[in-house]
C-alpha cells in the first residue's frame, strides 16, 4: 500500500471510523511503515495534549442554573394545535400545484391525440359528427388569409392560455420552494 493512502486514513483510524477490513489494512501497513507510524503517534500525541489542556469550566450550581433558566423561559408563540394543520397545509401547496399540472397536461395530451386521430380521418365509433374537423382542411386549402387567421386565432389563444397556465404553476411552485428555503433557515436553531 502506498504511504499516502494510509496517511489520509489515519484520522478515521484513530477516530475508529474505519470498517474492519480497512482497519486491518491500515494496521498491516503501519506494522511496516515508520513514516506512517510516526504520523499516527503525532496524532495520538495531539489528542492527549488536547485532553490534558481542556478548558477550565465555570463553577455552576446545577439547581441555581436550572432555576435561572426556568425564570427566563418565555411563552411560546404558536399554539401547538395549529402546528399540525399548518404543516399539512404547507405540504398541500406543492402537491396541489403538481397535481394540477399533471391533470392539465394529461387532458391536453389526450385532446391532442384525439385531434391528430380526427385529422388523419380516423373516427372512433360513437364520436359525434361535429368533432370530425372537416372544416379545418377546407380552410387550409382555400389559402384565404382571413379564414386562416380565423382558424389560427383560437389556436394561438389556446396555446397562449396553456403557456400562461404553466407559467402560473411554475411561479407557484418556485414561490413555494423559496418559502420552503426561508422556512428551513428560520428553523435552524
Amino acid at each position: 500500500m502506498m504511504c499516502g493512502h494510509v496517511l489520509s486514513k489515519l484520522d478515521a483510524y484513530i477516530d475508529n471510523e474505519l470498517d474492519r477490513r480497512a482497519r486491518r489494512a491500515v494496521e498491516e501497513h503501519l506494522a511496516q511503515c515508520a513514516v506512517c507510524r510516526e504520523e499516527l503517534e503525532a496524532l495520538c500525541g495531539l489528542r492527549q495534549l488536547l485532553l490534558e489542556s481542556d478548558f477550565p469550566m465555570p463553577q455552576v450550581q446545577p439547581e441555581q442554573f436550572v432555576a435561572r433558566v426556568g425564570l427566563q423561559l418565555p411563552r411560546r408563540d404558536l399554539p401547538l394545535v395549529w402546528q399540525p394543520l399548518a404543516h399539512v397545509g404547507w405540504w398541500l401547496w406543492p402537491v396541489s400545484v403538481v397535481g394540477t399540472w399533471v391533470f392539465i397536461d394529461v387532458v391536453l395530451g389526450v385532446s391532442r391525440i384525439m385531434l391528430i386521430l380526427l385529422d388523419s380521418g380516423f373516427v372512433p365509433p360513437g364520436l359525434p359528427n361535429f368533432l370530425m374537423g372537416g372544416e379545418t382542411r377546407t380552410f387550409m386549402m382555400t389559402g384565404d388569409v382571413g379564414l386562416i387567421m380565423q382558424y389560427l386565432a383560437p389556436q394561438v389563444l389556446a396555446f397562449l392560455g396553456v403557456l400562461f397556465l404553466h407559467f402560473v404553476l411554475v411561479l407557484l411552485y418556485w414561490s413555494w420552494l423559496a418559502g420552503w428555503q426561508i422556512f428551513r433557515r428560520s428553523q435552524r436553531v
Partner: protein
Amino acid sequence: METEVALIDKAKDGDRQAFGELVRLHQQGVIRVVTRMCGDVYLAEDAAQEAFIRAWQNLPRYRPRSPFKNWLYRIALNVALDRLRKERESVDVQSLPLTAPYEGPEGVVERQERQTRVRQAVLSLPPASRAVLILREYEGLSYREISETLDIPMGTVMSRLNYARKRLREGLAIYLEI
C-alpha cells in the same frame, strides 16, 4: 423517574417542570460545549442559559431523529457562534482567562503555560473547524453524529477535522516532538 422521551413530550406540551428536568440532565454537556467554543467561562454560562431558552422555544419542532443531546449541542454551538460574532471585536484570544486558577510548584507553571498555549491554538481555529473538533475530541461524537448535529455532509466533517488537526499540529509542534 421519567424517561427522557417522556420529559421531552411533556416539555413540548409546555410543561416547564419537565423542561427543568431536561436542563438538569444536560446542563453539564451544554456548558462544556459552549465553554470550549467560547473559551470564556463568564460568556459560557450566559450562552448556555440562552441555548436552553432557545431550545425551549424550538422544542415543538424537535423530531427525535437524532439524540436530544446532539440537538442541544447544535443549539449550543450556534449560540456560542452568535456570541463570538457579537464579541469578536472586543474579545482577544490572548487576553482570555484560559489558565485555571491554581498555584503550585514550579513544574506546574510549565504545564499551565502549555495548557494555555493549547487552548489559544484551539480558539484560533476557524469556528466551523473548532466545532467539529470539540464534538469529536471532547464529546466523543462519531462522524455521522457530528454530521447530523451540525447539518453538514460527512465529507465536510472529515475535511474540517483534518484541517483542525493539521493546524493544531503546526501550531503546537514544540509540544508534539517525540
